[in-house]
């Protein structure tokens, strides 16, 4: 898939250092926000004791959170935080698009790959920002779920889980692989992130549904249908699951298990997985038969809705999930590129939650319903002490709520903030942490060009210079004489290209062209100049053919200069460019370099311009680096 692979090494030290630095700075920002929030909260409560009192006075306990919701909220909260920490592995910066996203989508239809490619490319363009964002978004959502127990804050946390879960499911898991061949529950269908989204949706349900009689049955019915469907899929012939091995090749399940055993992981775990792989190779039919029967029975039991059946089924289900998690999914967290503990834990949580939701609702307290202040700190719903509505049987009707302007008055906001409980403050902090991830990611995605960090990771940083650029007088592609002195008054971006080069030079030319586009209106103050760097093929016809090939013929400020060989050699010498013939059919070996010469004719920057892997991300990054250098030379950085 084009664009997704930055072509960089997983362990690129510059990018890893930048990633760690970004995490550190953003972590400090998160701590500062926590400190500020905590300080402000404590301060307001000290200055306005009434606010503190309002919080406690309002305090007739609201409906208790049902156990199923508690399980989902805490369970998935912890999982999100864990996933966020996994995302902080150094190899994620470069490795996520090329080693995880791309292979996941590789066997999916072209339209899925197209969708996935968009996100993968965006990540490749801004790997550090994207990787750091993923950490904070997931940690933030996890903390938010844990902190916000009920009310709108909690619902919003659930919705955030839905949103980010679906985002990861589509772009990171290629729709959970449901459009690719080989779909099986054993390998994680329908995709862990979809389960996160489902849990988030359940958490986001309004309180009135918490104890609905149909909720538990509905959850288990959906899960039962899912397992029944997976049983059918598992039993389907011709998919390689019934055979432990196909001739000399491993069967589908055996192959998966054996490949998981190769992942770097603790030795004992690898031994278990390898052992299971051998067992599956020898008894493929039996293993698959067991899986089919188990899934079918579990599905049937869950669909029945009969508690007597469901309880043992849940236990069996959990055990089966754990076994699959260890022996087939290999826990999903090892190898340096594990993004989550795969699907078995989430699905086990959902099954258990469905079972718990079958339990009858607790008897309601006779005490009056109260809208707890702690539930309404959100700006649109700010409720001050004065606005606390206590409704009891026969009580007087409340006064009409104040308008939104009054609600947003500083006094009311401060009072509301002061009356919030600690959990709410924690939830607000978690939202801030999530935003620390979202905003930079959105800004990066909106950027036209890739981060210059990629170019620097490939070739190092630009070198700042300040000396008079050596002059030259050569002929452009139109046969017209051009001299450096004649370009005075404009910034010159200068490079050296072999007109018959097969690899680097076309890439460099495209990077120059992209830089010209990024310059926008400033391009009228810039000349893009290339000088031929081939001692054999340096005729004007050659430069013209190159321009046609690269679509540069119509670029008004592009000049490909050449001249007699002695003149070219002098220019190469002056600019420290080597251009040597290689023997036996090799390309001319020449220096890949770019110079930025300011309007006064001073060389300001030298860039090592070896284009590296030539991916979309690296090309864009080099173009951005060149643009930045040009703007700096214009005094407009």
């Amino acid at each position, binding site marked *: 898939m084009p664009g997704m692979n930055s072509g960089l090494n997983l362990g690129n030290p510059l990018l890893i250092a930048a990633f760690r630095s970004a995490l550190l700075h953003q972590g400090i920002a998160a701590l500062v926000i926590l400190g500020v929030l905590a300080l402000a909260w404590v301060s307001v409560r000290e200055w306005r004791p009434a606010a503190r009192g309002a919080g406690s006075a309002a305090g007739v306990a609201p409906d208790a959170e049902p156990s199923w919701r508690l399980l989902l909220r805490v369970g998935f909260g912890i999982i999100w935080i864990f996933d966020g920490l996994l995302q902080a592995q150094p190899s994620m910066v470069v490795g996520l698009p090329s080693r995880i996203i791309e292979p996941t989508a590789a066997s999916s239809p072209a339209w899925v790959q197209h969708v996935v490619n968009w996100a993968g490319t965006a990540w490749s363009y801004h790997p550090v920002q994207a990787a750091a964002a993923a950490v904070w978004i997931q940690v933030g959502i996890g903390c938010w779920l844990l902190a916000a127990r009920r009310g709108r804050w909690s619902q919003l946390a659930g919705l955030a889980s839905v949103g980010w879960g679906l985002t990861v499911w589509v772009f990171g898991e290629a729709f959970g692989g449901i459009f690719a061949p080989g779909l099986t529950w054993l390998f994680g269908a329908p995709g862990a992130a979809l389960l996160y989204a489902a849990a988030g949706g359940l958490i986001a349900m309004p309180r009135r549904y918490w104890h609905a009689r149909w909720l538990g049955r509905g959850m288990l019915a959906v899960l039962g249908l899912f397992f029944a469907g997976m049983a059918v899929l598992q039993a389907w012939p011709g998919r390689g699951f019934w055979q432990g091995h196909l001739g000399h090749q491993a069967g589908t399940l055996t192959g998966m298990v054996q490949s998981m055993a190769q992942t770097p992981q603790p030795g004992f775990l690898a031994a278990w997985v390898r052992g299971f792989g051998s067992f599956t190779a020898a008894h493929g039919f039996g293993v698959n038969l067991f899986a089919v029967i188990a899934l079918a029975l579990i599905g049937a039991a869950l669909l029945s809705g009969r508690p007597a059946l469901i309880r043992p089924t849940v236990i069996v289900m959990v055990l089966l999930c754990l076994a699959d998690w260890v022996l087939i999914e290999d826990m999903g967290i090892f190898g340096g590129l594990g993004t989550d503990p795969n699907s078995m834990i989430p699905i086990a949580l959902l099954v258990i939650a469905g079972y718990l939701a079958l339990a009858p609702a607790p008897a309601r307290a006779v005490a009056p319903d109260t809208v707890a202040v702690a539930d309404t700190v959100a700006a649109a719903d700010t409720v001050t002490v004065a606005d606390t509505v206590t409704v009891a049987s026969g009580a007087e009707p409340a006064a009409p709520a104040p308008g939104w302007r009054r609600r947003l008055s500083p006094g009311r906001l401060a009072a509301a903030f002061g009356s919030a409980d600690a959990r709410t403050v924690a939830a607000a902090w978690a939202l801030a942490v999530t935003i620390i991830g979202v905003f930079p990611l959105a800004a990066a995605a909106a950027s036209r060009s890739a981060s210059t960090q990629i170019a620097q990771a490939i070739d190092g940083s630009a070198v700042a210079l300040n000396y008079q650029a050596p002059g030259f007088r050569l002929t452009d592609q139109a046969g017209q004489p051009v001299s450096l002195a004649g370009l005075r008054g404009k910034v010159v971006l200068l490079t050296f290209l072999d007109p*018959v080069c097969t690899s680097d030079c076309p890439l460099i030319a495209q990077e120059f062209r992209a830089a010209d586009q990024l310059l926008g209106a400033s391009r009228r103050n810039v000349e893009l100049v290339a000088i031929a760097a081939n*001692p054999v093929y340096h005729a004007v016809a050659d430069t013209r053919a190159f321009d046609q090939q690269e679509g540069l013929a119509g670029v008004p400020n592009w000049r490909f200069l050449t001249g007699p060989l002695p003149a070219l050699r002098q220019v190469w010498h002056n600019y420290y460019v080597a251009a040597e013939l290689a023997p036996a059919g*090799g390309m001319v070996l020449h220096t890949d370099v770019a110079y930025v010469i300011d309007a006064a004719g001073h060389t300001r920057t030298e860039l090592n311009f070896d284009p590296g892997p030539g991916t979309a991300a690296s090309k864009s990054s080099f173009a951005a680096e060149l643009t930045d250098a040009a703007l700096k030379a214009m005094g407009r950085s």
Partner: protein
Amino acid sequence: MTIPRPSRVTLPAAALAAMLAAGCGSTVAGTGVPAAGRTHVRLPLVTSLTVPGMASWAIVDMGGSSAAYENFWQLITRRAGTARWTLATPPGVADNGGLVAASLGGAALVTGVDPSQDLRFSPLATTRDSGAHWTPGLLPAGLASVPSALAAGTGGRLLALTDRGLAEMSAPGGASWARLTSLASLAATPAGRSCGLRSLTAAAFTPSGMPLLAGQCASRGVTGIFAYSGGGWRRAGPALPAALAQRRVSVLQLSTAGHRTIALLTAAAPGGAVSLIAAWANPGGRWALSAPLPLNGARVVSTAADPGAAARTTSTGTTSTGTTAAAAGTGTTSTGTTAAATGTAGAGQAAIPAASTVGVILSTGLADTIAGPASPWRQLPALPAHAAALVLGPGPLISALAAHGSVLTGWRLAAPAGSRAVAWTRTQVMKVPVPYGSSS
């Protein structure tokens, strides 16, 4: 008898895009002009040409994997009167995509580089001193991946097939190029329609300087060779005998040798069996065909030509006139082709065969040569390991070049002293400075 002085001789680069690296292509027929936008290299066949009294030239692929752009095509030359091969690859451009060449007569040769990776046009280079010095040139388009993609005519005019299905012709000296025709235009002519032209696979000039184009026909029993004269195209290929009337014919290679034009054809039967046929045309345009050589599933991976031998062979009238020689194929075919197919002849022959004009190396590792239309195909003794190119001439001399990595080994087929049986004798080992890694 006078031996006609060879004028312009095109280097017979075999026209089967064998896709050696990919291992694809079960037919011998040329695959025509590939689509623009190259990914992996599709190499033309290895070729060789002997210019009598001047030099022998061979083009071989050396180095590593073409998929990784670690292969580099080399031009090897051996001057007349010497036994040593020397490296003469034109400098200044990466030739991972392939190399084609056409003789300009005498010691002059023009080469073209097939584009690879991000290069989309073909640099040219011309030598007038057997490769000691080169003058650069340019075709502002990519050469097709077929061995007869470049041809040289009178006054230094060049004819090129491009990877976009065009035929371009240059002014004398190769200075400027203009479009001669395209696949679509030629296919739309009456001549093209009668052939059902599918693709263009070869270019050449007749001895009198007329442009010739050849390709693959969809119609059975028709040879797709066309000559341009009087502003139009006419069919100029051999008529096939009745025995070949149901076969689809492709032109692998087309070259002008002395006053003769040599064509190498494949004829595919409806059942899939493919045979190789050599054809010679006299200055009047009358063709003589060889007996078919059944390929039995093999592909032609290398061709060789000795135009001097062809000139001598044909000028002595050993071929029949016109297409009658094809009838000889039905008589002598069984002998010649059976020998070639079963390998029972050739190996252990008592004497070195008469001068061959055309030779091929097949994907089975066997090599066959033929002197002329009245001659049978002769199978040579088993080739040395890694043999890539066969070189015919001068005279009855048969050489082979084996390429393995960066080592080129020269072999000669001769009868050792005291023996009547011919065998391959190593004559030279050359270390070629393949520039690994320079293109990736």
